[in-house]
């Protein structure tokens, strides 16, 4: 049954693409495909099944599908948000050609993520992981007449493929250490084994997780991935792809629990957290603000995981899907109506009341106001980390800035001036299929708050999660609640005054100077930018920039490559000489290594 649910979107999508020629009908078929597998979801049972795939002497490798409460949670988010995204796309993609390709890629993407959600061993995980990389690449580069889109897709694929291969590396090493690839067995053995091989395996797995979940220093690709159509961004950021990394970290938590691993996660996520929060506060592209906030949320989850607050991280994981999809839907509506992408040009959003109010719900939830689910997820993590002073302090500081930047974003969208009046008709003609999913999502950001109190019961339904260190229900202490409400309110009010009322005009300058252009800030920003863009851009634009990049970096291997290339078009004398020298080298090394 699970296999059917997981593959149904893809199969129906392929069928639809094969049968339906009409552009307008294909979107309904896609929605039906998405809805069908969601409708089948209540029929599933918890359990694990293995299909044999490779039989190698003494070691069988199979595809294990396992449904636990945790994977059921992810699966339902994937299918639910997927359905909303498909409905939204029905309106959004009207202006774009090539519907068949879009829906096929979208449904394949959904199927890959659904497979990921139910994977029960490393083989299944790897397959899903790889297909996520490929389909996301296709979707990011969907608008392939835009050069920037192609470059972004290429960057994403390169970074993510590095993760795929380190994942293979870790899988091979896990096999070596544990003799099995089943999650259940690895988890039960994880605490007992200590070896350098295991340590390397976990580090390789971490690199894979960091690339997928866009953690420093691999975070650049996610920002560039904004080149994809907005429904794709919404899906990518809310429930698929980037969540895969975090989910893997939660699923295999016992591997990361050891202190010599968790400090790495802590450091990387803390750096990412600071970087992305500041970047979100200075970004001027509508979608990129939200993209930076995704990176920030991913790093909050990773921070929580590294400090043992896994249950809080899982709740955060659940809740983030709804408001993040909602905010992307909102930016999509605003950008489509105005035809602009820059924050100070996109405004007048108030013209379409329902969309505007729904987005407001998302903003309040992201900032973390009571009683929105964002409050419970943010404060839940902080409450679980009371003993961990650095993390707690960091999260408190971030809370102020988070509400600051998201209210700033919303203030820009809400502004009204002469030009924005001309956008009003565009807002009003936005198709309903784009606005209604937003309203439902807005309701869900509130409804998800209730899950806070029941999530631990839900998750402990299977004995699978017994390894989680936090078994007690989540709770929020009154002091934490009060403190965070105050911090958030401060950030929100400040931002509102600066960017909407514009009453602290002189303040903007000095604030800007402190946050954005102060010497220390600037310096550290540039250092980080050089590191990250050097890494990601350098790799992804390998072909065009290979020469100057490596010249400047002074990396000798590639220069050696050029050298060898020259040799290899040489004369036969050179070849013969190299051949003989090779034999001599063999002999000499053999003599020294073996005989002496």
């Amino acid at each position, binding site marked *: 049954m699970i296999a059917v649910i997981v593959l149904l979107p893809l199969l129906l999508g392929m069928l639809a693409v094969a049968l339906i020629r009409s552009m307008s009908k294909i979107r309904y078929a896609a929605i039906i495909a998405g809805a069908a597998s969601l409708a089948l979801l209540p029929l599933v049972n918890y359990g694990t099944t293995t299909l044999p795939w490779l039989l190698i002497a003494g070691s069988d490798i199979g595809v294990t599908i396992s449904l636990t409460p945790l994977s059921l949670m992810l699966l339902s988010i994937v299918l639910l948000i997927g359905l909303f995204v498909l409905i939204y796309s029905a309106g959004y993609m009207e202006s774009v050609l090539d519907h068949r390709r879009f829906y096929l890629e979208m449904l394949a993407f959904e199927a890959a993520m659904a497979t990921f959600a139910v994977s029960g061993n490393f083989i299944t995980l790897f397959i899903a992981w*790889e297909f996520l990389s490929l389909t996301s690449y296709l979707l990011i580069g969907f608008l392939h007449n835009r050069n920037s889109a192609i470059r972004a897709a290429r960057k994403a694929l390169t970074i993510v493929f590095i993760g795929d291969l380190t994942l293979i590396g870790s899988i091979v090493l896990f096999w070596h250490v544990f003799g099995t690839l089943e999650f259940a067995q690895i988890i039960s053995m994880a605490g007992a084994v200590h070896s350098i091989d295991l340590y390397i395996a976990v580090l390789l797995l971490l690199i894979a997780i960091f690339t997928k979940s866009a953690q420093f220093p691999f975070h650049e690709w996610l920002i560039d991935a904004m080149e994809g159509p907005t429904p794709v961004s919404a899906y990518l950021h809310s429930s698929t792809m980037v969540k895969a990394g975090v989910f893997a970290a939660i699923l295999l938590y016992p591997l990361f629990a050891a202190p010599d691993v968790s400090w790495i996660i802590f450091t990387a996520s803390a750096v990412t957290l600071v970087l992305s929060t500041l970047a979100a506060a200075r970004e001027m592209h509508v979608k990129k603000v939200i993209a930076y906030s995704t990176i920030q949320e991913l790093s909050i989850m990773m921070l929580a995981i590294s400090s043992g607050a896994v249950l809080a991280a899982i709740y955060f994981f659940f809740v983030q899907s709804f408001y993040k999809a909602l905010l992307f839907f909102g930016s999509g509506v605003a950008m489509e109506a105005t035809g602009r992408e820059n924050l100070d040009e996109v405004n007048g959003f108030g013209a379409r009341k329902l969309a505007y109010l729904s987005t407001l719900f998302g903003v309040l939830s992201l900032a973390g106001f009571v009683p929105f689910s964002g409050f419970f997820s943010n404060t839940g993590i902080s409450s679980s980390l009371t003993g961990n002073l650095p993390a707690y302090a960091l999260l408190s500081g971030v809370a102020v800035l988070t509400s600051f930047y998201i209210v700033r974003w919303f203030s820009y969208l809400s502004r009204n001036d002469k030009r924005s009046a001309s956008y009003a008709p565009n807002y009003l003609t936005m198709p309903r299929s784009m606005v209604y999913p937003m309203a439902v999502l807005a309701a869900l950001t509130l409804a998800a708050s209730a899950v806070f109190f029941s999530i631990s019961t839900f998750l402990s339904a299977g004995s699978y999660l017994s390894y989680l260190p936090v078994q007690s229900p989540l709770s929020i202490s009154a002091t934490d609640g009060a403190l965070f409400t105050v911090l958030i309110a401060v950030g929100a009010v400040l931002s509102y005054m600066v960017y909407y009322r514009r009453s602290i005009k002189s303040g903007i300058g000095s604030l800007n100077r402190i946050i954005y252009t102060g010497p220390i800030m600037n310096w550290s920003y540039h250092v980080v930018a050089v590191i990250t863009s050097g890494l990601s851009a350098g790799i992804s634009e390998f072909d065009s920039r290979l020469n100057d990049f490596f010249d400047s970096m002074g990396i000798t291997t590639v220069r050696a490559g050029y050298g060898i290339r020259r040799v*290899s078009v040489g004369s036969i004398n050179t070849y013969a000489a190299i051949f003989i020298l*090779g034999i001599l080298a063999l002999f000499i090394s053999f003599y020294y290594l073996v005989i002496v």
Partner: protein
Amino acid sequence: MVLFNLVFRLLGDKKGQFGMNIVFMLLILASTALMMLSGYVGVVGNVISINPFSEFLFAMFTAGLLVVSIIAFHYSENYMDFAVMSNFALLGMFAVSAATSVITIFLGLELATIPMVFAILLSKRSIEAAAKLFIMASIAIAVLSFAIVLFYGDTNGFALSEYSGGEVMAFAGLLFIAALGFEASIFPFNVLIPDVYTGSPAYLTGMLGGLNKKVGLVALMQILILIFITNKQLFIFVAILSVLTMTYGNVVALVQRNTKRMLAYSSISQAGYILIGIAAATPQGVAASLFQIFSHMFIFIGMMGIVALLEKRNRTEIDELIGLNGENRYAAFAMSLFMLSLIGLPFTTGFIGKLLLFLSAVNAGLVWLAVIGIINSVISIFYYLKAIMAMYTEKDGGRPLKMNRTLAFAVFVCVVITIVLGVYPQPLISLATNAAGYMLPAT
């Protein structure tokens, strides 16, 4: 079959010869399949033995040549010469596959290599490439003869059987590695390979890279595993050579501008991966190597089919791949699939092969080798993706590139093999394991 070919060459009918060739190869395939099913084992004289190992290779090489012939039929100016030469070479490959003596391997290798020199020469494309290949092959022959002399001096025989001698034997082993390293394109004995690949027409490159180099690997495998299995030091050298070969291939491939040159270096790096299984020196490792040899053979031949298509339009640079998707969707798809398979995409043979190889290395205690292999795969992403991106970049004014039906069929066969055996690899794994088990019984 060789005789028939000669006759047809003299009588001179291209189509008739092609048809006869195909029929013969299918007959060989069918009879090998029968032998495999019945588990036939036999010994001819003291030099040749038919067993699951050689049957596996018979079938593999014949199937490979079948696909190459289909490509060559359309693209070769003098198919009939090619048919004769390739049949001689196939005979040589059979000899190597079934050898039980060093002499058989020696003869088989020469029989497989020398006709290729003439085939390149007769294609009238690059005399230089043929001359280079010939001279280097002669040096390799000299070294191989010397190795055999040392071997004979120590053992008083030519049989491929376990023997651990003193230092003289170890030196003989090194010489074997060097001489066969040339045949198998192993660094640093492979420096001329890209020249030869680029200088030959694409179908011949497919033959050289897909079949001849694989024969070299098989010969190396037989000599090392059957004779030197107890000499563990030698296998450390194989592991080191494997690292050198794949790193060399991958790093140099990064900076290539010419499609065929890039693929030549990529095939060198693949030879490095295949060596991992030999270095592991376990039945599992040998099986993994055989699997990867099979997988890479068809991928390489398929890629050369598409290169042949491009060569007709004189598009040899990677930059000239731009817009291929617009001109011929099928070619772009097949080429991307082959490249993704070489990177290691799940549900393709490349993934299974790499997985088997890395697992076998880990199980043999060579964890570092597996890790280096994976690092190398990361490097290889960049040049494959560069080519794939180029194919899917749009270009203005591309005119449709029509693909000939026979070529399309040949490429289709390779695509099907890559996907079907990637999704359901069990039959091939069983065959390879069976073959490896015969060669190197599990202890």
